[in-house]
């Protein structure tokens, strides 16, 4: 029984982290119809940002994450103008490859400067006992933060003018133009926020699990599954998808071999895409 | 009779785009379809060419039931079409575009024959000097002619023309009308949607009028042009206007 509780708890926490990692991908997908293949690279970049701030300034990832967020927005907007603006209306192959080349550049430079040695941020907050299971405090914090960031994103998208403009652009870009929305700026901003969320996810996850510059790729692949599970283009869906995924990985494995989990995940991905390409919770 | 539609209904979600439309097209005639914007004309064409299957109704081509036949098979049977929004194969040359029609349509020619046919058809529509140009580089009137050429290359028995005159200037329009008459002379049945009234009135043998997805009139151009419901569909209801005036005063 204890094991089940522990599995559910850790599944939820892991799921929240997964969800946070996928939100940015889904936001970009929803607003600009671009599958951002540099998502994983930016997650890794967030991990390193958090790592270096912790190492050289001694600032906990749970504080520096807000700095990472701000830097992420700026980086993302720059990336948009460098790599995407020219091809935003071109066929999918162009945006796929443009974002992939971004990923190559980031990971390439990351490998050059940081090597691919594993690193870890040891905040050392210890563990806490919940229903008889010990859970590292960092994990709980990551879970809380991912709820907070999702909430912030929702407040931003639903309560601010800029956020509403982003939603409007995602629904009808021409109409948004008629309303006086500077759509180029909004597109770049949406990409910036998507990137920033990826980096934030990386920064937080880095406090729990060790990582290398290549680690982001794992989360990127999982994010695809999560987005498809939760509904393409829906940020809240990403969180739900993440939870499903986290529970799948932690609860199901009590009964089946852990090794089969990736197989099931990708099988689910393909099946959902075939049955309902917009995802389980996605709109038609 | 080459084409017979019986009670065709096509819906999108809750919206009825084509509502219980029946008609027959005689072999060798030009059959015009007109109607205001959003009347369901293009949807009807899509049902005839097999892009959509109708929810209700039957479609017969030369007495063969084609209601659920995939579009490529209809092309093989001899139904060809052009698109309102032109769909050139941009990265292929004009010649290659037309060869696609010849290779996979009713003719089902091999490459060598297809090339010969393509040259002939390009000659007919007056595009032979552009044969080696990439289709994407053509201007809209040329693209329209390309659409037509591609459809013709398949040696169809029935050709669906979706607004081939739109966006053309008057001299281009009369050029195109000549081409259409030439097609008719070859014995090909033509089913055409057109907004350019004077043109379609001039060339059509019979005309069907759609409004809100339903057929509201059918007959010779003169009959249709003097039909009350047709005039109303196009110019609005004068009574309605009067009513507004009254209410406005009230």
């Amino acid at each position: 029984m204890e094991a089940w509780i522990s599995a559910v708890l850790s599944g939820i926490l892991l799921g929240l982290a997964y969800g946070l990692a996928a939100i940015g991908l889904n936001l970009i997908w929803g607003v600009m119809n671009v599958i951002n293949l540099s998502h994983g690279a930016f997650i890794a970049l967030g991990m390193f940002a958090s790592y270096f701030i912790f190492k050289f300034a001694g600032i906990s990832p749970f504080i520096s994450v807000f700095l990472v967020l701000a830097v992420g927005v700026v980086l993302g907007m720059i990336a948009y103008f460098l790599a995407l603006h020219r091809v935003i209306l071109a066929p999918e192959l162009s945006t796929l490859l443009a974002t992939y080349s971004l990923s190559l550049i980031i990971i390439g430079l990351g490998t050059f400067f940081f090597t691919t040695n594993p690193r870890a941020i040891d905040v050392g907050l210890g563990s806490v006992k919940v229903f008889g299971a010990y859970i590292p405090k960092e994990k709980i914090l990551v879970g809380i933060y991912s709820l907070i960031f999702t909430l912030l994103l929702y407040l931003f998208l639903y309560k601010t003018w800029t956020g509403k403009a982003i939603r409007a652009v995602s629904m009808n870009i021409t109409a948004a133009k008629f309303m006086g929305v500077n759509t180029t700026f909004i597109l770049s901003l949406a990409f910036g926020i998507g990137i920033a969320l990826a980096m934030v996810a990386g920064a937080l996850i880095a406090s729990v699990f060790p990582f290398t510059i290549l680690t982001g790729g794992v989360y990127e692949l999982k994010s695809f599954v999560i987005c498809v599970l939760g509904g393409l283009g829906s940020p809240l869906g990403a969180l739900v998808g993440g939870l499903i995924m986290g529970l799948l990985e932690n609860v199901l494995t009590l009964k089946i071999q852990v090794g089969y989990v990736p197989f099931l995940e990708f099988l689910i991905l393909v099946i959902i895409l075939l049955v309902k390409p917009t995802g389980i919770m996605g709109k038609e | 009779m080459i084409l017979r539609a019986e009670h065709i209904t096509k819906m999108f979600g809750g919206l009825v785009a084509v509502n219980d439309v029946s008609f027959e097209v005689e072999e060798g005639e030009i059959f015009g379809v007109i109607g205001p914007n959003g009347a369901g004309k293009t949807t009807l064409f899509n049902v005839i060419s097999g892009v959509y299957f109708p929810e209700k109704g039957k479609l017969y081509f030369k007495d063969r039931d084609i209601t659920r036949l995939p579009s490529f098979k209809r092309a093989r049977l001899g139904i060809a079409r052009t698109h309102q929004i032109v769909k050139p194969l941009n990265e292929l040359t004009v010649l290659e575009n037309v060869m696609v029609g010849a290779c996979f349509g009713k003719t089902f020619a091999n490459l060598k024959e297809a090339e010969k046919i393509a040259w002939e058809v390009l000659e007919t529509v007056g595009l032979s000097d552009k044969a080696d140009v990439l289709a994407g580089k053509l201007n809209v009137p040329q693209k329209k002619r390309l659409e037509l050429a591609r459809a013709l290359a398949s040696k169809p028995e029935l050709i669906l023309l979706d607004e081939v005159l739109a966006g053309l200037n008057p001299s281009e329009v009369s050029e195109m009308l000549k081409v259409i008459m030439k097609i008719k002379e070859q014995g090909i049945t033509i089913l055409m949607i057109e907004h350019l009234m004077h043109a379609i009135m001039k060339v059509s043998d019979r005309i069907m009028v759609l409004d809100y997805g339903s057929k509201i009139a059918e007959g010779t151009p003169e009959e249709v042009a003097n039909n009350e419901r047709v005039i109303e569909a196009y110019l609005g209801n004068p009574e309605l206007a009067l009513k507004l005036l009254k209410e406005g005063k009230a």
Partner: protein
Amino acid sequence: MKRLVAFLVGVSFLMLGLTTSFAKDKIVIGFTMSQTGKLNAESAEQYRGLLLWQKWVNSQGGIYVKALKKKLPVKFVYYDDESSKDRVQQLYVRLISKDKADFLISPYSSGLTASAAVIAEQYGKIMMATGAASDSIFNKGYMHVFQIYTPASRYLTGALDLLKAVDPKAKKVAIVYEQSNFAKAVATAAKKYAEKHGFKVVLFESYAKGTTDFTSFLNKIAAKRPDAIIGGGHFADGETFARQIFEQRIKVKLVSLLVAPAVPKFAEIGKAALYVTAPSQWEPKAKYTEASAKKLGISWYGPTASWFVKTYEKEYKEAPGYHAAGGFIAGLVLQKAIEDAGCLDAEKVRKALEKMDIMTFYGRIKFETGKYYGRQIGHDMVYLQWQEKGGKLVKEVVWPEHAASARLVYPYYKKY
């Protein structure tokens, strides 16, 4: 058209480049190492051990080659294999044919070594396999690959002996291992051994390379309540595994992991490292001396352990782990074989290796010549445990009893 073809052919030839050759005045030893990638930590240590051997032997003027009647210095040529198999074969071919390597050292890890071994065999080059413990490499019919490490099949069996000795009631064992050649071989052998000796294997599962989250395994382990967790893979995953066992306060009595705890860097995870045990090919505290050689009636070769530890610490400002020792010994054994053969001919050196039976500071070295040709049969494992001494984490040898430097602290969960 013809000219175009001629031009293109010319260009293609140019692009392919030309090979060069050079005269022989040194012994060239080639290898690849993982300067980057997931195996970087272990590989780097192994490389430092090798480098120390090169320094040592060249400071003596090189290796004496009887046929040439002179000492030849040793030159290393190496490339980065990025811990990935993709380039290993290409790089080893390059080492042999372009860089004219006389002898080869294996890359780090059994997986990469297996790939490189194919090339060594194809070209008939002697390859000293260090950092490669998998048994399976040695039943593939290779005649040129020689193993320095105690093979995987004998890696964790000692941990079970240790558990049995200290707590005869402890019967339930969970085996969780990395999906690599080496760890799989170790785990499979350990499972067989455990079942044969009355243990109950309650969990036997593997995890993907690069795994960073062991929660699902730990949940499972918590549910099955085993007495011991044994397994692991290489450094990065092992360190994480140990950390997460501690974070989740898993109540087990013995934790024995491959590779990671034996690397000095393991101490960085602090209290999570405490009381973790590990098999080790060699520990600075292990006592192999000329005397032990005499007892077995075999000859002693090379420097002493204290010299090695002292010089290594002076050179690299850290204590050597067994990967470093393995690297040094790979060179040392090759040196002995060349001296015995008296020439650089691969077949004669191979015969010398077949006959070799020596004692070094690292332990005994002897190779199998039967079905598992080249497999190490002379060397034995020791077991270490991280213990606290004066507020500092130190490695102590706890098994076998006659080599122990301290008693095993038991159970593991005592520290919670």
